[in-house]
Each structure stands twice: as structure tokens, then as C-alpha cells.
């Protein structure tokens, strides 16, 4: 299974976009996950909607916008109303926690805006409104296996829709109120996006072509020293983005592996 990468976006603490991510890597700068996320407001949204978006929605939209803007610059004649796929393990962890808290109080009051923002496809919904895009919009969760399932689904969707697909993988740490291991509440947020086309290879692409193959192996792990953002599910994408950024200067020794589930891995190489 192959797909061409037409554009890339990334948002993480200390990383404003893919351009600065690439520069940091090539210049050997150290990534610092304790830095803040760059401030952002989705200017493409009508003001009513813009006021209502949460931190989670903003990260997803920012990363989506980066990939689309870049795509429009490189391919000004291509259709921009692409189908989209948003992948997130937990959706909006802060809203979920706030709603659960609200229903434990007397009287239980949930804000209507919070409620409609709580749906897993809220970023997708805002994106389509802001882009006046009536294509298919999907929002999925594959638990911790976000990267492999997101890539695979985006490529299959691109094939079936016969056009490029915008995929955004984003995750925030869980809310402080949720009783889980504190590491899950303090790890850095991470989001990345790609526009992938499984239908044709364009000659002048600045990016490489992804080759995917499924293999039966147990889960594969990621080492902390290889990935400073390790924690949320989307952060597994760091390895992939690094390989894409270094593609022209360094070739991969072996394919990257991302777990599809407990039993299968997705091997990804760049050519």
C-alpha cells in the first residue's frame, strides 16, 4: 500500500510547525516538551464559532490548517475541499472531566456549548464549517494505536474517494480530575497532520512516498531517548515526522513500526 505525502503539519510544545520542526532537527537543537504550545486562533472560522473553540479543538484545527495551507501553496490548482479524518484517543479530555463533575453536583448543570463541543467530531465539524467543505468528515479513536490506524484509514479513504485526504492525529494529556496514573495527566500534548494521496504520484513533491505493509508481530515499543514527546498516543508520530524531515539527508536503516493492535504491526518506509 502506497501513498504520497503532499503536505505535513505538526504542533507540540516548543514546535510551532513542520518548518521549525525540520530546522530544529537538522540543526541539532534539543526539543523541550516543557515549553508552551504556540498561541493560535482559527481565523478561518466565523467569529461566533471562533469564540467557542476549546484548547483541544484549537490544536487539531491549527495542525489541520498548517497542512492545508502548505498544500495550497505547493498545488494551487488542486481541489481543497478534501475529505478529512481526525484521530484522537480521548477527544477533549477537559470537557469530558468538566461534564462528569457537573453531573455530580446539585443541580447538575451542563453548558450547552460545552455539550456540543464534547462530541469526538467537534474539531471535524468546526473544520468543515470554517472551510465551507461538505465532504465526508470522520472522527475515530483507536486507543493507543492512533498512528497506525490513522495512516491506514486515511490511505484507504483516499483510495475510495479517489482524491487526497487530510488526516489529523491529535492528543492532549488527560484532565487532572480524572483518577488515572499522574503520568497520563502531565505528558505533553502532540498533534500532526498530513495530506495523503493514494491515487497518483506527483513529480515535483518535496515529500516522500509512504509504503505501508501489515505484519504479524507482537506490539512494538518506542524508546524514550528516541522520542522526547513520548506519552500521548499521537506522539508516536514523532518518529515518522523525524524520518520525513530528514528524508533528504538521511535514509532509514529499516522500516518504522507502528502497532496496529496487540497482534499486528504496520511497517512504514519512505521512498
Amino acid at each position, binding site marked *: 500500500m502506497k501513498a504520497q505525502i503532499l503536505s505535513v503539519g505538526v504542533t507540540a510544545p516548543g514546535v510551532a510547525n513542520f518548518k521549525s520542526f525540520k530546522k530544529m532537527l537538522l540543526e541539532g537543537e534539543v526539543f523541550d516538551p516543557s515549553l508552551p504550545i504556540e498561541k493560535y486562533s482559527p481565523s478561518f472560522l466565523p467569529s461566533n464559532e471562533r469564540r467557542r473553540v476549546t484548547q483541544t479543538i484549537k490544536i487539531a484545527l491549527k495542525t489541520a490548517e498548517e497542512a492545508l495551507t502548505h498544500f495550497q501553496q505547493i498545488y494551487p490548482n488542486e481541489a481543497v475541499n478534501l475529505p478529512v479524518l481526525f484521530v484522537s484517543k480521548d477527544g477533549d479530555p477537559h470537557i469530558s472531566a468538566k461534564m462528569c463533575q457537573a453531573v455530580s453536583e446539585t443541580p447538575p448543570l451542563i453548558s450547552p456549548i460545552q455539550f456540543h463541543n464534547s462530541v469526538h467530531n467537534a474539531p471535524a465539524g468546526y473544520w*468543515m464549517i470554517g472551510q465551507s467543505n461538505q465532504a465526508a468528515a470522520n472522527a475515530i*479513536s483507536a486507543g493507543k494505536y492512533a498512528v497506525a490506524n490513522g495512516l491506514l484509514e486515511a490511505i484507504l479513504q483516499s483510495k475510495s474517494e479517489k482524491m487526497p485526504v487530510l488526516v489529523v492525529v491529535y492528543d492532549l494529556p488527560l484532565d487532572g480530575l480524572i483518577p488515572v496514573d499522574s503520568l497520563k495527566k502531565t505528558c505533553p500534548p502532540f498533534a500532526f497532520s498530513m495530506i495523503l494521496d493514494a491515487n497518483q504520484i506527483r513529480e515535483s513533491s518535496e515529500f516522500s512516498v509512504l509504503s505501508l505493509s501489515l505484519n504479524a508481530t507482537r506490539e512494538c515499543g518506542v524508546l524514550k531517548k528516541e522520542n522526547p514527546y513520548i506519552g500521548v498516543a499521537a506522539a508516536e508520530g514523532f518518529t515518522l515526522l523525524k524520518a520525513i524531515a530528514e528524508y533528504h539527508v538521511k535514509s532509514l536503516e529499516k522500516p518504522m513500526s507502528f502497532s496496529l493492535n496487540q497482534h499486528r504491526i504496520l511497517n512504514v518506509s519512505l521512498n
Partner: protein
Amino acid sequence: MRILASSLVTALGSGKTEHVDALLEGSTGLSSQVPFHSKILEIETYLGEVSQLGETQLPKELLGFHCRNHQLAWKALQADGFAQKVQGLIKQFGAHRIGLVVGTSTSGIAATEEVFRGELSLDEYDYEKTDQMGSLAQFCCEALNIQGPSFVISTACSSSAKVFSVAQRWLNADLVDVVVAGGVDTLCLTTLHGFNALGLVSKNICKPLDIHRDGINIGEAGGFVLLGDKSLVPESLESSIEVVGVGESSDAYHISSPHPEGQGAQLAMQLAMSQAGIDIDDVDYINLHGTATQSNDLSEISGISHLVNLTTAIWVSSTKGFVGHTLGAAGITEVIFCQWALEEQFVPANLNLKELDPALEQKLESTFILDQINVPLQTVSLTEEPLSINYAMSNSFGFGGNNASVLLKRRGGE
């Protein structure tokens, strides 16, 4: 791809026989007095609660997943021998050649609600296996021993209609031989209070399309279908119902209100029909999203008024009056209703409709097709009439302006 097997649990009961009997009789599963009402004393409404769901026992090895949503998933997997049929296919094809894709809107959030309310102790709570959005797929894969690709779709009320599109993609790419597709959503406080805060919950029994409709009744449901291509499956799973089209679209209009002219709805229906290579004249029955809110029904009927023409004669009804709005499970519930309607040749009633809203009539009159649309007030059994239904389409629309239509065909009837 064919529907090789299905299973459904709603407020109407468990499995095909109980559902078909209730649909034919026109008896509702909605009630103003069920156990869940004791948790929402502030809200007066009807609910579609699955009876005695809380008593469902998960097997020992799956106890970590314990929450209302997974109890319903388990119950639905046992209905009509569904899980056994999956085991048969695993023997034939191997566990990694079966995929699983399921829809839900709120997953097991009820478990976290209970923790916050002091009703569940922390040592009985596992966020990752209950509330976490992907946990339904994980639970179902472990329950069925499926090892192929799997994930959860969560696009609010269109979630478990969109699973059909994923199944098509997996089968077309030869990633798997068979797909388990489905959806589960259960009653929880955030949903009840959230819809109530939006002013969308009716204190009466819901009345889709009626002049006096004033909102939704929330229900819960769990349903699954087995999807595959005919050439590969054993004869024991021979089925006459085929999924011939799936259409997905976005309104790009508003985060929680549908497009007033039903543009997205229309687009989803058109895409489903064009994938099947048919047009609206071929469609015999549309199972509406039909939530009974003012805006949904107006939007959906507007969408239909632009599609239907003078040569069409079509049945339309909403089955929300039977089971309520089962949210993330509405898609799978209503596709299975369509499957059974085609198999048993009946058109489900649009319960609680006394007087068609003149605003809807006006929409239909504006495109001169009021006489083309037939809304059955009682379930019509076609075995006694010289008519038949061969194509049925199910609509599901969700917050975020997210739409999906699924088109089914009965083999043999053209």
C-alpha cells in the same frame, strides 16, 4: 457486501423476533417510568431503557471493562447467536482476517460519572477500559477474539452508520474477509443533561414529523452486523440483504443545528444512491433520522423534497417512536430495522404521528411531491398487499453537521 448476520438489543427487546413483533404491532419501548428516571429527577421525559441491563454479567476475563456500555455490547453480541457465528468465521478465515469497526458517542463515560458521584470506588474503575473512546472496539475484539484492524468511529449520531463505509474500504482493499460492524450507546447523565441544556429533550413521548413535536426521547441500543462478500462465506450465512451504497457528507453549516434546507442530508442520500447506481425512483422506503426536534425533521424533509420527483412513490418513517434516539447506536439500529423490513416485507410505522406538520407539508408541496410521500401511521405488512419493498435507505445525522446514509437491497427483488 452482504449482511451475513445481525443482532440487536434495544428497549424493544433482544434479537430479531422480539423486534419484528414489536414493530409489526406498533408497540413502543419508550416509557416515562424506568429505573434510569431515578437518576435524573430534574428531567421529565420518556426513555428507551434496555430492561435489566445492569444485571448483565461480563465473563471473568473481561471484568476490567465493566461499565453500562460494555454490558450492552456483551448482551448484543450474545443475541441471536451472533458471537458463535463470528467464531465460525474466525475458524474459516483466521482471527486476523476479521475486522471490527464500531460507533459510539459517549463510550463508557457513565463509569467516570459514577466515580465523580461517589457511586463507584476507584479500585473498581479503569478509565482506559471504560470511558476512553476506543475502549468499545478493544472490548469487542477481546470478547470475540478478533485480531484484524479495529477502531471506534465517534461522529455523534451518525457514528454507527459510518461504520459501513469503513467495512467497504477494508473489504475492497482485501485487508480482511469479514467485518463485524456495529454500535453501542447507553444512557448516561452527561448526555441527558447535555441535550436537556440544549432544550432538545421532550417531556412527552417523541412525535417525529408531527405538528406538536417538541424534542427527542433518548434511548440506548447495541447492534452488530457481519459483513462480507458472498463468494467466501458458508451457506449457513446466506443472506438476501446487501449493502449497496453508503453516502457520507458534511453540512458545513452549524455545530449543533442541521442545514435548514437539508443540503448535507441530500448529499449523503445522493452519494449512497449513486454508489448503488440507482436513483430515488428505485428507493421504496427511507428510514428517517427523524429525531422529532423541530429543526431536524424540517431539515431532513427539505432534503427529501429536493430529491423526490413526480414519478417517485416512496414510504418514509421515523422509528424513533419505538426505541427513542439511540444516538451513536442509531445508525446500526435503523439499518438493522431496514434489513428486517426488507426480509419480512413490512414498512415500520411512524409512531405518535397524529397530524403532519404543515411546515413539512409546505416543503413537500413546494416541489409538488406531497402526494409522492407515504408516511405509515401503522406498520404496513406488505405480505398481504400486492406491493413489495426492495431498496431501503437509512439516514443518520449528527452534531458537527455529520451525515451518513446507508442503502440496502433485497436480492431477488428489483
